[in-house]
Protein backbone atom coordinates (compact mmCIF):
# COMPACT_ATOMS: atom_id res chain seq x y z
CA UNK A 1 0.00 0.00 0.00
CA UNK A 2 1.63 3.26 -1.12
CA UNK A 3 -0.51 5.40 1.19
CA UNK A 4 -0.01 6.24 4.84
CA UNK A 5 -2.63 5.36 7.40
CA UNK A 6 -3.59 9.00 7.65
CA UNK A 7 -4.16 9.28 3.90
CA UNK A 8 -6.37 6.21 4.03
CA UNK A 9 -8.21 7.57 7.04
CA UNK A 10 -9.01 10.86 5.27
CA UNK A 11 -9.86 8.97 2.08
CA UNK A 12 -12.33 6.77 3.93
CA UNK A 13 -13.81 9.56 6.04
CA UNK A 14 -13.20 12.84 4.28
CA UNK A 15 -13.89 15.96 6.39
CA UNK A 16 -15.89 19.01 5.28
CA UNK A 17 -17.36 17.36 2.23
CA UNK A 18 -20.10 19.08 0.26
CA UNK A 19 -21.05 22.26 -1.51
CA UNK A 20 -22.50 25.64 -0.43
CA UNK A 21 -25.58 27.45 -1.70
CA UNK A 22 -24.06 30.90 -1.31
CA UNK A 23 -20.30 30.70 -0.88
CA UNK A 24 -18.22 33.87 -0.58
CA UNK A 25 -15.61 32.26 -2.81
CA UNK A 26 -15.55 29.13 -4.86
CA UNK A 27 -13.38 27.38 -7.42
CA UNK A 28 -13.15 24.24 -9.50
CA UNK A 29 -9.70 23.06 -10.46
CA UNK A 30 -9.09 20.20 -12.83
CA UNK A 31 -6.16 18.36 -14.30
CA UNK A 32 -6.73 17.15 -17.82
CA UNK A 33 -3.53 15.15 -17.46
CA UNK A 34 -4.87 12.82 -14.83
CA UNK A 35 -8.56 13.70 -15.04
CA UNK A 36 -9.08 14.64 -11.41
CA UNK A 37 -11.21 17.58 -10.36
CA UNK A 38 -11.78 19.37 -7.09
CA UNK A 39 -14.21 22.12 -6.05
CA UNK A 40 -13.65 24.32 -3.00
CA UNK A 41 -16.23 26.60 -1.33
CA UNK A 42 -15.43 29.13 1.38
CA UNK A 43 -17.26 31.47 3.72
CA UNK A 44 -15.16 34.45 4.80
CA UNK A 45 -15.84 36.90 7.62
CA UNK A 46 -15.60 40.30 5.95
CA UNK A 47 -14.26 41.95 9.12
CA UNK A 48 -11.61 39.50 10.27
CA UNK A 49 -10.96 37.98 6.81
CA UNK A 50 -11.04 34.60 8.51
CA UNK A 51 -12.35 31.50 6.74
CA UNK A 52 -15.37 30.59 8.86
CA UNK A 53 -16.53 27.63 6.83
CA UNK A 54 -15.08 25.53 4.04
CA UNK A 55 -16.34 22.62 1.96
CA UNK A 56 -14.88 20.56 -0.84
CA UNK A 57 -15.94 18.04 -3.44
CA UNK A 58 -13.67 15.67 -5.31
CA UNK A 59 -13.89 13.80 -8.57
CA UNK A 60 -10.58 12.17 -8.02
CA UNK A 61 -8.34 9.47 -6.69
CA UNK A 62 -7.42 8.72 -3.10
CA UNK A 63 -4.69 11.34 -2.78
CA UNK A 64 -6.95 13.95 -4.31
CA UNK A 65 -9.69 13.19 -1.78
CA UNK A 66 -7.33 12.98 1.19
CA UNK A 67 -5.60 16.25 0.30
CA UNK A 68 -8.94 17.99 -0.17
CA UNK A 69 -9.94 16.79 3.27
CA UNK A 70 -6.75 17.84 5.06
CA UNK A 71 -6.64 21.20 3.32
CA UNK A 72 -10.11 22.10 4.62
CA UNK A 73 -9.01 21.21 8.14
CA UNK A 74 -5.87 23.33 7.78
CA UNK A 75 -7.69 26.33 6.31
CA UNK A 76 -10.66 26.53 8.62
CA UNK A 77 -10.32 29.44 11.05
CA UNK A 78 -7.30 30.90 9.30
CA UNK A 79 -7.29 34.34 7.66
CA UNK A 80 -7.22 34.30 3.88
CA UNK A 81 -3.64 35.56 3.93
CA UNK A 82 -2.61 32.67 6.17
CA UNK A 83 -4.61 30.16 4.16
CA UNK A 84 -2.98 31.26 0.91
CA UNK A 85 0.34 30.14 2.29
CA UNK A 86 -0.75 26.56 2.86
CA UNK A 87 1.41 24.54 0.49
CA UNK A 88 1.20 21.11 -1.02
CA UNK A 89 4.25 20.19 1.01
CA UNK A 90 2.51 21.15 4.22
CA UNK A 91 -0.61 19.20 3.27
CA UNK A 92 1.50 16.23 2.34
CA UNK A 93 3.38 16.38 5.65
CA UNK A 94 0.12 16.55 7.57
CA UNK A 95 -0.90 13.37 5.81
CA UNK A 96 2.35 11.65 6.68
CA UNK A 97 3.61 11.93 3.11
CA UNK A 98 2.14 11.27 -0.34
CA UNK A 99 3.70 9.23 -3.14
CA UNK A 100 5.60 11.62 -5.46
CA UNK A 101 3.78 10.30 -8.51
CA UNK A 102 0.55 11.39 -6.88
CA UNK A 103 1.60 15.02 -6.37
CA UNK A 104 -0.20 15.68 -9.61
CA UNK A 105 -3.63 14.81 -8.31
CA UNK A 106 -3.19 16.12 -4.79
CA UNK A 107 -1.80 19.54 -5.66
CA UNK A 108 -5.20 20.33 -7.16
CA UNK A 109 -6.79 20.68 -3.76
CA UNK A 110 -4.16 23.22 -2.72
CA UNK A 111 -4.70 25.15 -5.93
CA UNK A 112 -8.44 24.88 -5.40
CA UNK A 113 -8.17 26.57 -2.03
CA UNK A 114 -6.02 29.38 -3.44
CA UNK A 115 -8.37 29.84 -6.39
CA UNK A 116 -11.39 30.01 -4.06
CA UNK A 117 -9.62 32.71 -2.06
CA UNK A 118 -8.77 34.55 -5.27
CA UNK A 119 -12.42 34.32 -6.30
CA UNK A 120 -13.39 35.88 -2.98
CA UNK A 121 -10.81 38.63 -3.43
CA UNK A 122 -11.93 39.37 -6.98
CA UNK A 123 -15.56 39.58 -5.93
CA UNK A 124 -14.66 41.91 -3.09
CA UNK A 125 -12.45 44.23 -5.12
CA UNK A 126 -9.24 43.10 -3.48
CA UNK A 127 -7.43 42.25 -6.74
CA UNK A 128 -5.45 44.63 -8.89
CA UNK A 129 -5.77 44.70 -12.67
CA UNK A 130 -4.43 42.29 -15.27
CA UNK A 131 -0.69 42.15 -15.83
CA UNK A 132 0.77 41.11 -19.20
CA UNK A 133 2.32 37.65 -19.37
CA UNK A 134 6.09 37.51 -19.13
CA UNK A 135 8.47 34.57 -18.84
CA UNK A 136 8.41 35.14 -15.08
CA UNK A 137 4.63 34.82 -15.00
CA UNK A 138 4.90 31.58 -17.00
CA UNK A 139 7.63 30.30 -14.71
CA UNK A 140 5.52 31.01 -11.68
CA UNK A 141 2.63 29.04 -13.18
CA UNK A 142 4.93 26.17 -14.12
CA UNK A 143 5.80 25.87 -10.46
CA UNK A 144 2.38 24.23 -10.18
CA UNK A 145 3.20 21.59 -12.77
CA UNK A 146 4.44 18.48 -11.05
CA UNK A 147 7.30 16.32 -12.17
CA UNK A 148 5.81 12.89 -11.45
CA UNK A 149 9.29 11.43 -11.09
CA UNK A 150 9.94 13.40 -7.94
CA UNK A 151 6.68 14.95 -6.81
CA UNK A 152 8.34 18.34 -6.98
CA UNK A 153 7.51 20.93 -9.58
CA UNK A 154 9.09 21.01 -13.02
CA UNK A 155 10.86 24.32 -12.44
CA UNK A 156 12.50 23.27 -9.22
CA UNK A 157 13.59 19.95 -10.68
CA UNK A 158 15.10 21.80 -13.64
CA UNK A 159 13.01 20.07 -16.25
CA UNK A 160 12.30 23.39 -17.97
CA UNK A 161 15.14 24.29 -20.31
CA UNK A 162 13.64 27.40 -21.83
CA UNK A 163 10.55 29.59 -21.79
CA UNK A 164 9.76 32.07 -24.54
CA UNK A 165 6.80 34.47 -24.71
CA UNK A 166 6.10 36.17 -28.01
CA UNK A 167 2.93 37.86 -29.23
CA UNK A 168 0.50 35.68 -27.38
CA UNK A 169 2.48 32.50 -27.91
CA UNK A 170 4.30 30.67 -25.15
CA UNK A 171 6.98 28.11 -25.98
CA UNK A 172 8.20 25.78 -23.27
CA UNK A 173 11.19 23.51 -23.80
CA UNK A 174 11.20 20.45 -21.53
CA UNK A 175 14.32 18.44 -20.75
CA UNK A 176 12.75 15.04 -21.38
CA UNK A 177 12.65 12.72 -24.33
CA UNK A 178 9.45 12.91 -26.35
CA UNK A 179 8.65 9.27 -25.71
CA UNK A 180 9.29 9.52 -21.97
CA UNK A 181 6.76 7.74 -19.79
CA UNK A 182 5.41 11.02 -18.42
CA UNK A 183 5.88 13.30 -21.46
CA UNK A 184 2.22 13.29 -22.49
CA UNK A 185 0.98 13.91 -18.96
CA UNK A 186 3.43 16.79 -18.38
CA UNK A 187 2.58 18.39 -21.71
CA UNK A 188 -1.12 18.41 -20.95
CA UNK A 189 -0.48 19.79 -17.51
CA UNK A 190 1.71 22.63 -18.82
CA UNK A 191 -0.89 23.60 -21.41
CA UNK A 192 -3.61 23.56 -18.82
CA UNK A 193 -1.67 25.91 -16.55
CA UNK A 194 -0.60 28.42 -19.22
CA UNK A 195 -3.55 28.52 -21.60
CA UNK A 196 -5.94 30.31 -19.21
CA UNK A 197 -3.63 33.39 -19.09
CA UNK A 198 -5.72 36.23 -20.48
CA UNK A 199 -3.32 37.35 -23.20
CA UNK A 200 -2.09 33.91 -24.36
CA UNK A 201 -3.48 32.33 -27.52
CA UNK A 202 -1.13 29.40 -28.05
CA UNK A 203 1.08 27.17 -25.96
CA UNK A 204 3.74 25.01 -27.56
CA UNK A 205 5.55 22.36 -25.56
CA UNK A 206 8.75 20.91 -26.98
CA UNK A 207 10.62 17.90 -25.64
CA UNK A 208 14.34 17.98 -26.19
CA UNK A 209 15.81 15.70 -23.59
Amino acid at each position, binding site marked *: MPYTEKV*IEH*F*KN*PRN*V*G*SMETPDGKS*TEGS*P*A*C*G*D*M*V*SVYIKVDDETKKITDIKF*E*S*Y*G*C*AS*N*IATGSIITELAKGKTIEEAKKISWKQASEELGGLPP*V*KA*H*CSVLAVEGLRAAIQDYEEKHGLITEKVPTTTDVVKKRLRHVMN*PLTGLDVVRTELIKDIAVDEGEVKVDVDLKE*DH*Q*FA*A*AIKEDIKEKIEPLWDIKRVKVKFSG
Partner: protein
Amino acid sequence: MTVYLDNASATKLDERVLDAMRPYLFEVYAVATSEFGYSLGIEAKEALDTARANIAKRMNGNPDELVFTSGSTESSNLALKGIIKAFDTKKSKKSKKHIIVSTIEDFPVLNSAKTLEKQGVDVTFVPVDETGLVDIEQLKESFTDNTVLVSIQHANQEIGTIQDIKTIGEFCSDHGVLFHTDATHTFTRVPLDVTQIPVDLVTVSAHTIHGPKGVGALYIKEGTPITKVMDGGFQENNMRAGLENIPGAVGFSKAVDLVTDKENQQIQNMRDTLIDKVLTEIPHTTLNGHPKKRTPHNANITFHYVEGESITLHLDMRGFAVSTGSACFSRSLEASHVIMGIGGDHERAHGSVRFTFGRFNTMKDVDAIVTAVSEVVKSLRDISPLGKSGGD
Protein backbone atom coordinates in the same frame (compact mmCIF):
# COMPACT_ATOMS: atom_id res chain seq x y z
CA MET B 1 -10.90 -13.67 1.88
CA THR B 2 -10.27 -11.76 -1.27
CA VAL B 3 -12.80 -11.91 -4.06
CA TYR B 4 -10.43 -11.87 -7.00
CA LEU B 5 -11.81 -10.37 -10.20
CA ASP B 6 -8.64 -9.47 -12.03
CA ASN B 7 -8.14 -12.75 -13.87
CA ALA B 8 -7.15 -11.02 -17.11
CA SER B 9 -4.02 -9.76 -15.33
CA ALA B 10 -2.99 -12.98 -13.59
CA THR B 11 -4.73 -16.08 -12.30
CA LYS B 12 -4.40 -18.37 -9.32
CA LEU B 13 -2.42 -21.47 -10.17
CA ASP B 14 -4.65 -24.55 -10.24
CA GLU B 15 -3.30 -27.16 -7.82
CA ARG B 16 -3.70 -29.83 -10.46
CA VAL B 17 -1.32 -27.80 -12.62
CA LEU B 18 1.20 -27.72 -9.81
CA ASP B 19 0.83 -31.48 -9.35
CA ALA B 20 1.59 -31.98 -13.04
CA MET B 21 4.65 -29.72 -12.79
CA ARG B 22 6.08 -31.11 -9.57
CA PRO B 23 7.89 -34.15 -11.04
CA TYR B 24 9.69 -31.85 -13.48
CA LEU B 25 10.94 -29.68 -10.63
CA PHE B 26 12.13 -32.43 -8.28
CA GLU B 27 12.69 -35.59 -10.30
CA VAL B 28 13.01 -34.95 -14.01
CA TYR B 29 14.86 -31.66 -13.58
CA ALA B 30 17.50 -32.26 -16.24
CA VAL B 31 18.01 -30.22 -19.37
CA ALA B 32 16.13 -31.53 -22.41
CA THR B 33 18.78 -33.49 -24.23
CA SER B 34 18.88 -35.07 -27.66
CA GLU B 35 17.97 -38.71 -28.03
CA PHE B 36 21.67 -39.51 -27.58
CA GLY B 37 21.75 -37.97 -24.13
CA TYR B 38 21.20 -39.54 -20.72
CA SER B 39 17.87 -40.97 -19.64
CA LEU B 40 16.80 -38.09 -17.41
CA GLY B 41 17.42 -35.60 -20.21
CA ILE B 42 15.55 -37.73 -22.73
CA GLU B 43 12.62 -37.95 -20.34
CA ALA B 44 12.66 -34.17 -19.95
CA LYS B 45 12.70 -33.73 -23.72
CA GLU B 46 9.75 -36.07 -24.09
CA ALA B 47 7.74 -34.13 -21.52
CA LEU B 48 8.52 -30.88 -23.34
CA ASP B 49 7.43 -32.26 -26.69
CA THR B 50 4.30 -33.86 -25.26
CA ALA B 51 3.33 -30.49 -23.79
CA ARG B 52 4.11 -28.80 -27.09
CA ALA B 53 1.94 -31.22 -29.05
CA ASN B 54 -0.94 -30.92 -26.62
CA ILE B 55 -0.99 -27.11 -26.65
CA ALA B 56 -0.63 -27.01 -30.45
CA LYS B 57 -3.50 -29.46 -30.77
CA ARG B 58 -5.81 -27.13 -28.85
CA MET B 59 -5.61 -24.71 -31.79
CA ASN B 60 -5.40 -27.53 -34.34
CA GLY B 61 -1.75 -26.83 -35.11
CA ASN B 62 1.15 -29.23 -35.60
CA PRO B 63 3.53 -29.88 -32.72
CA ASP B 64 6.55 -28.50 -34.56
CA GLU B 65 4.70 -25.23 -35.14
CA LEU B 66 4.77 -24.21 -31.48
CA VAL B 67 7.69 -22.39 -29.83
CA PHE B 68 7.75 -21.99 -26.06
CA THR B 69 8.61 -18.55 -24.71
CA SER B 70 8.58 -16.74 -21.39
CA GLY B 71 5.06 -15.42 -22.00
CA SER B 72 2.93 -13.22 -24.23
CA THR B 73 5.35 -10.31 -24.21
CA GLU B 74 8.17 -12.38 -25.60
CA SER B 75 5.89 -14.19 -28.06
CA SER B 76 4.61 -10.96 -29.58
CA ASN B 77 8.09 -9.40 -29.64
CA LEU B 78 9.37 -12.48 -31.45
CA ALA B 79 6.47 -12.39 -33.91
CA LEU B 80 6.80 -8.76 -34.95
CA LYS B 81 10.57 -8.30 -34.71
CA GLY B 82 11.38 -11.80 -35.95
CA ILE B 83 9.31 -11.31 -39.10
CA ILE B 84 10.87 -7.93 -39.87
CA LYS B 85 14.33 -9.37 -39.20
CA ALA B 86 13.65 -12.22 -41.62
CA PHE B 87 12.60 -9.77 -44.31
CA ASP B 88 15.74 -7.73 -43.61
CA THR B 89 18.11 -10.67 -43.95
CA LYS B 90 16.33 -11.98 -47.02
CA LYS B 91 17.39 -8.80 -48.81
CA SER B 92 13.76 -8.64 -49.70
CA LYS B 93 12.67 -6.77 -52.77
CA LYS B 94 10.58 -4.79 -50.39
CA SER B 95 13.18 -2.25 -49.36
CA LYS B 96 10.66 -0.41 -47.27
CA LYS B 97 8.54 -2.56 -44.99
CA HIS B 98 5.07 -1.76 -43.75
CA ILE B 99 3.11 -3.33 -40.91
CA ILE B 100 -0.42 -2.76 -39.62
CA VAL B 101 -1.57 -3.01 -36.00
CA SER B 102 -4.66 -1.72 -34.21
CA THR B 103 -4.62 1.24 -31.84
CA ILE B 104 -5.87 -0.90 -28.95
CA GLU B 105 -3.30 -3.72 -29.08
CA ASP B 106 -1.76 -4.70 -25.79
CA PHE B 107 1.66 -3.19 -25.05
CA PRO B 108 3.84 -6.04 -26.39
CA VAL B 109 2.46 -5.57 -29.91
CA LEU B 110 1.91 -1.82 -29.65
CA ASN B 111 5.37 -1.04 -28.35
CA SER B 112 7.12 -3.54 -30.64
CA ALA B 113 5.45 -1.73 -33.53
CA LYS B 114 6.63 1.62 -32.17
CA THR B 115 10.19 0.34 -31.84
CA LEU B 116 10.12 -0.99 -35.41
CA GLU B 117 8.76 2.37 -36.55
CA LYS B 118 11.81 4.08 -35.06
CA GLN B 119 13.99 1.62 -36.95
CA GLY B 120 12.46 2.70 -40.24
CA VAL B 121 9.49 0.37 -40.64
CA ASP B 122 6.26 2.08 -41.75
CA VAL B 123 3.49 1.39 -39.27
CA THR B 124 -0.23 1.98 -39.66
CA PHE B 125 -2.19 2.10 -36.43
CA VAL B 126 -5.66 1.22 -37.60
CA PRO B 127 -8.50 2.63 -35.48
CA VAL B 128 -11.42 0.81 -33.90
CA ASP B 129 -15.09 1.73 -33.56
CA GLU B 130 -16.83 2.58 -30.29
CA THR B 131 -17.29 -1.11 -29.45
CA GLY B 132 -13.61 -1.81 -30.02
CA LEU B 133 -13.95 -3.56 -33.39
CA VAL B 134 -11.20 -2.85 -35.90
CA ASP B 135 -12.38 -0.80 -38.86
CA ILE B 136 -11.88 -3.50 -41.49
CA GLU B 137 -12.45 -1.18 -44.44
CA GLN B 138 -9.74 1.13 -43.20
CA LEU B 139 -7.50 -1.84 -42.52
CA LYS B 140 -7.93 -3.01 -46.11
CA GLU B 141 -7.33 0.48 -47.46
CA SER B 142 -4.09 0.79 -45.52
CA PHE B 143 -2.49 -2.14 -47.34
CA THR B 144 0.41 -1.10 -49.58
CA ASP B 145 2.79 -3.01 -51.84
CA ASN B 146 5.22 -2.99 -48.93
CA THR B 147 2.89 -4.48 -46.31
CA VAL B 148 4.51 -7.58 -44.84
CA LEU B 149 2.63 -8.16 -41.60
CA VAL B 150 -0.70 -7.42 -39.93
CA SER B 151 -1.00 -7.90 -36.17
CA ILE B 152 -4.53 -7.69 -34.78
CA GLN B 153 -5.36 -9.16 -31.40
CA HIS B 154 -7.95 -11.92 -31.09
CA ALA B 155 -9.59 -10.10 -28.19
CA ASN B 156 -8.83 -7.02 -26.18
CA GLN B 157 -7.16 -7.13 -22.78
CA GLU B 158 -9.30 -4.42 -21.21
CA ILE B 159 -12.71 -4.43 -22.87
CA GLY B 160 -12.74 -8.02 -24.17
CA THR B 161 -13.90 -7.18 -27.70
CA ILE B 162 -13.34 -10.14 -30.04
CA GLN B 163 -12.09 -9.17 -33.49
CA ASP B 164 -13.20 -10.72 -36.74
CA ILE B 165 -9.84 -12.40 -37.28
CA LYS B 166 -11.27 -14.70 -39.94
CA THR B 167 -12.07 -11.85 -42.30
CA ILE B 168 -8.80 -10.11 -41.49
CA GLY B 169 -6.79 -13.32 -41.92
CA GLU B 170 -8.44 -14.13 -45.24
CA PHE B 171 -7.73 -10.66 -46.58
CA CYS B 172 -4.09 -10.95 -45.50
CA SER B 173 -3.81 -14.38 -47.03
CA ASP B 174 -5.32 -13.15 -50.32
CA HIS B 175 -2.66 -10.45 -50.46
CA GLY B 176 0.29 -12.58 -49.45
CA VAL B 177 0.66 -10.72 -46.17
CA LEU B 178 1.52 -12.46 -42.90
CA PHE B 179 -1.01 -12.30 -40.07
CA HIS B 180 -0.24 -12.42 -36.35
CA THR B 181 -2.85 -12.46 -33.63
CA ASP B 182 -2.35 -11.97 -29.89
CA ALA B 183 -4.63 -14.60 -28.36
CA THR B 184 -3.47 -14.09 -24.76
CA HIS B 185 -7.00 -13.32 -23.60
CA THR B 186 -8.86 -15.89 -25.70
CA PHE B 187 -6.79 -19.07 -25.84
CA THR B 188 -9.02 -21.97 -24.66
CA ARG B 189 -11.76 -19.49 -23.70
CA VAL B 190 -12.76 -18.59 -27.27
CA PRO B 191 -12.30 -21.18 -30.04
CA LEU B 192 -9.36 -20.68 -32.39
CA ASP B 193 -8.59 -23.20 -35.13
CA VAL B 194 -5.57 -22.41 -37.27
CA THR B 195 -6.86 -24.66 -40.04
CA GLN B 196 -10.06 -22.60 -40.26
CA ILE B 197 -8.63 -19.14 -39.75
CA PRO B 198 -5.72 -18.16 -41.99
CA VAL B 199 -3.28 -17.06 -39.32
CA ASP B 200 0.49 -17.37 -39.44
CA LEU B 201 1.44 -16.51 -35.88
CA VAL B 202 -0.47 -16.74 -32.59
CA THR B 203 0.62 -15.47 -29.19
CA VAL B 204 -0.62 -17.49 -26.19
CA SER B 205 0.20 -17.59 -22.49
CA ALA B 206 -0.39 -19.80 -19.45
CA HIS B 207 -0.87 -17.01 -16.93
CA THR B 208 -4.44 -16.20 -18.00
CA ILE B 209 -5.75 -19.77 -17.61
CA HIS B 210 -4.60 -20.78 -14.11
CA GLY B 211 -1.25 -21.96 -15.42
CA PRO B 212 2.16 -20.84 -14.19
CA LYS B 213 3.51 -17.34 -14.81
CA GLY B 214 6.50 -16.95 -17.09
CA VAL B 215 5.55 -19.42 -19.78
CA GLY B 216 3.85 -18.79 -23.08
CA ALA B 217 4.19 -19.83 -26.67
CA LEU B 218 4.17 -18.56 -30.21
CA TYR B 219 2.46 -20.62 -32.86
CA ILE B 220 4.38 -20.20 -36.12
CA LYS B 221 2.82 -21.74 -39.21
CA GLU B 222 5.24 -23.94 -41.08
CA GLY B 223 7.10 -22.01 -43.76
CA THR B 224 6.63 -18.59 -42.15
CA PRO B 225 9.74 -16.47 -42.71
CA ILE B 226 10.94 -15.57 -39.21
CA THR B 227 14.34 -15.14 -37.59
CA LYS B 228 15.07 -15.58 -33.90
CA VAL B 229 15.67 -12.33 -32.02
CA MET B 230 17.53 -13.51 -28.92
CA ASP B 231 20.95 -15.06 -29.37
CA GLY B 232 22.06 -18.15 -27.51
CA GLY B 233 21.73 -21.86 -28.08
CA PHE B 234 19.74 -23.74 -30.64
CA GLN B 235 16.74 -24.59 -28.48
CA GLU B 236 13.16 -24.57 -29.73
CA ASN B 237 14.08 -25.51 -33.26
CA ASN B 238 16.59 -22.64 -33.24
CA MET B 239 13.79 -20.12 -32.78
CA ARG B 240 14.13 -19.30 -29.09
CA ALA B 241 17.43 -19.58 -27.26
CA GLY B 242 17.65 -20.40 -23.58
CA LEU B 243 17.20 -23.37 -21.29
CA GLU B 244 13.72 -24.78 -21.80
CA ASN B 245 11.24 -24.17 -18.99
CA ILE B 246 9.99 -27.74 -18.82
CA PRO B 247 7.93 -27.48 -15.61
CA GLY B 248 6.38 -24.37 -17.13
CA ALA B 249 5.60 -26.09 -20.41
CA VAL B 250 4.10 -29.09 -18.63
CA GLY B 251 2.05 -26.77 -16.42
CA PHE B 252 0.85 -24.78 -19.43
CA SER B 253 -0.24 -28.00 -21.12
CA LYS B 254 -2.14 -29.15 -18.05
CA ALA B 255 -3.77 -25.72 -17.70
CA VAL B 256 -4.98 -25.98 -21.29
CA ASP B 257 -6.54 -29.38 -20.56
CA LEU B 258 -8.38 -28.06 -17.53
CA VAL B 259 -10.31 -25.37 -19.42
CA THR B 260 -13.60 -26.84 -20.61
CA ASP B 261 -16.58 -25.49 -22.53
CA LYS B 262 -18.67 -26.02 -19.43
CA GLU B 263 -16.35 -23.84 -17.36
CA ASN B 264 -16.35 -21.14 -20.02
CA GLN B 265 -20.15 -21.15 -19.96
CA GLN B 266 -20.21 -20.86 -16.15
CA ILE B 267 -17.77 -17.97 -16.29
CA GLN B 268 -19.87 -16.27 -18.93
CA ASN B 269 -23.02 -16.68 -16.84
CA MET B 270 -21.34 -14.97 -13.89
CA ARG B 271 -20.08 -12.19 -16.13
CA ASP B 272 -23.49 -11.68 -17.77
CA THR B 273 -25.16 -11.52 -14.37
CA LEU B 274 -22.65 -8.93 -13.20
CA ILE B 275 -23.21 -6.73 -16.25
CA ASP B 276 -27.01 -7.01 -15.96
CA LYS B 277 -27.04 -6.17 -12.29
CA VAL B 278 -24.61 -3.29 -12.46
CA LEU B 279 -26.26 -1.63 -15.45
CA THR B 280 -29.76 -1.96 -13.99
CA GLU B 281 -29.02 -1.33 -10.32
CA ILE B 282 -26.45 1.44 -10.54
CA PRO B 283 -27.39 4.63 -12.43
CA HIS B 284 -24.98 6.42 -14.78
CA THR B 285 -23.04 3.39 -15.89
CA THR B 286 -21.79 2.49 -19.37
CA LEU B 287 -20.59 -0.88 -20.62
CA ASN B 288 -17.29 -0.52 -22.47
CA GLY B 289 -16.63 -2.87 -25.37
CA HIS B 290 -18.95 -4.89 -27.54
CA PRO B 291 -22.31 -6.04 -26.09
CA LYS B 292 -22.01 -9.52 -27.68
CA LYS B 293 -18.60 -10.07 -29.25
CA ARG B 294 -16.60 -10.21 -26.05
CA THR B 295 -14.53 -12.74 -24.14
CA PRO B 296 -16.67 -14.75 -21.69
CA HIS B 297 -14.82 -13.53 -18.60
CA ASN B 298 -14.63 -9.77 -19.22
CA ALA B 299 -16.84 -6.94 -18.00
CA ASN B 300 -15.64 -3.34 -18.28
CA ILE B 301 -17.91 -0.63 -16.96
CA THR B 302 -17.55 3.12 -16.55
CA PHE B 303 -19.08 4.58 -13.41
CA HIS B 304 -19.61 8.18 -14.36
CA TYR B 305 -18.75 11.09 -12.01
CA VAL B 306 -16.28 9.02 -9.97
CA GLU B 307 -12.66 8.04 -10.36
CA GLY B 308 -11.38 4.50 -10.83
CA GLU B 309 -8.50 4.41 -8.37
CA SER B 310 -10.82 5.59 -5.62
CA ILE B 311 -13.24 2.80 -6.53
CA THR B 312 -10.54 0.13 -6.63
CA LEU B 313 -9.01 1.29 -3.35
CA HIS B 314 -12.35 1.26 -1.56
CA LEU B 315 -13.08 -2.17 -3.01
CA ASP B 316 -9.65 -3.38 -1.98
CA MET B 317 -10.34 -2.34 1.61
CA ARG B 318 -13.50 -4.45 1.42
CA GLY B 319 -11.61 -7.41 -0.01
CA PHE B 320 -12.21 -7.16 -3.75
CA ALA B 321 -9.51 -7.05 -6.44
CA VAL B 322 -10.41 -5.28 -9.69
CA SER B 323 -8.56 -2.94 -12.04
CA THR B 324 -9.24 0.41 -13.70
CA GLY B 325 -8.29 2.34 -16.82
CA SER B 326 -7.95 5.58 -14.88
CA ALA B 327 -4.79 7.59 -15.44
CA CYS B 328 -4.34 7.87 -11.67
CA PHE B 329 -3.90 4.13 -11.51
CA SER B 330 -1.41 3.77 -14.34
CA ARG B 331 2.35 3.91 -14.17
CA SER B 332 2.53 6.52 -16.92
CA LEU B 333 -0.30 8.72 -15.54
CA GLU B 334 -1.98 8.21 -18.88
CA ALA B 335 -5.54 7.11 -19.28
CA SER B 336 -6.14 3.72 -20.85
CA HIS B 337 -5.23 3.79 -24.53
CA VAL B 338 -8.00 1.26 -25.11
CA ILE B 339 -10.80 3.42 -23.68
CA MET B 340 -9.40 6.44 -25.51
CA GLY B 341 -9.10 4.26 -28.63
CA ILE B 342 -12.81 3.39 -28.63
CA GLY B 343 -13.54 7.09 -28.72
CA GLY B 344 -13.96 7.47 -25.01
CA ASP B 345 -12.74 10.65 -23.38
CA HIS B 346 -10.72 11.05 -20.20
CA GLU B 347 -13.96 11.05 -18.27
CA ARG B 348 -14.88 7.61 -19.59
CA ALA B 349 -11.47 6.18 -18.77
CA HIS B 350 -11.41 7.96 -15.41
CA GLY B 351 -14.27 5.92 -13.95
CA SER B 352 -13.73 2.66 -15.84
CA VAL B 353 -13.44 -0.57 -13.89
CA ARG B 354 -12.57 -3.97 -15.31
CA PHE B 355 -13.96 -7.14 -13.72
CA THR B 356 -12.51 -10.38 -15.08
CA PHE B 357 -13.67 -13.80 -13.93
CA GLY B 358 -11.81 -17.07 -13.56
CA ARG B 359 -12.24 -20.67 -12.50
CA PHE B 360 -12.40 -19.94 -8.78
CA ASN B 361 -15.17 -17.35 -8.83
CA THR B 362 -18.74 -18.16 -7.83
CA MET B 363 -22.16 -16.53 -8.22
CA LYS B 364 -21.79 -15.42 -4.60
CA ASP B 365 -18.85 -13.29 -5.69
CA VAL B 366 -21.10 -11.59 -8.23
CA ASP B 367 -23.69 -10.66 -5.60
CA ALA B 368 -20.99 -9.47 -3.22
CA ILE B 369 -19.17 -7.30 -5.76
CA VAL B 370 -22.38 -5.73 -7.06
CA THR B 371 -23.42 -4.76 -3.53
CA ALA B 372 -19.96 -3.43 -2.71
CA VAL B 373 -19.45 -1.48 -5.90
CA SER B 374 -22.92 0.00 -5.61
CA GLU B 375 -22.17 1.33 -2.12
CA VAL B 376 -18.70 2.55 -3.02
CA VAL B 377 -19.86 4.37 -6.12
CA LYS B 378 -22.70 5.98 -4.21
CA SER B 379 -20.42 7.25 -1.46
CA LEU B 380 -17.92 8.62 -3.98
CA ARG B 381 -20.67 10.30 -5.98
CA ASP B 382 -21.84 11.95 -2.79
CA ILE B 383 -18.54 13.81 -2.58
CA SER B 384 -18.12 14.41 -6.32
CA PRO B 385 -18.74 17.88 -7.78
CA LEU B 386 -20.30 16.07 -10.75
CA GLY B 387 -22.07 13.54 -8.59
CA LYS B 388 -25.64 12.48 -8.98
CA SER B 389 -25.89 9.76 -6.42
CA GLY B 390 -29.56 8.94 -6.50
CA GLY B 391 -31.54 8.05 -9.58
CA ASP B 392 -31.59 10.16 -12.68
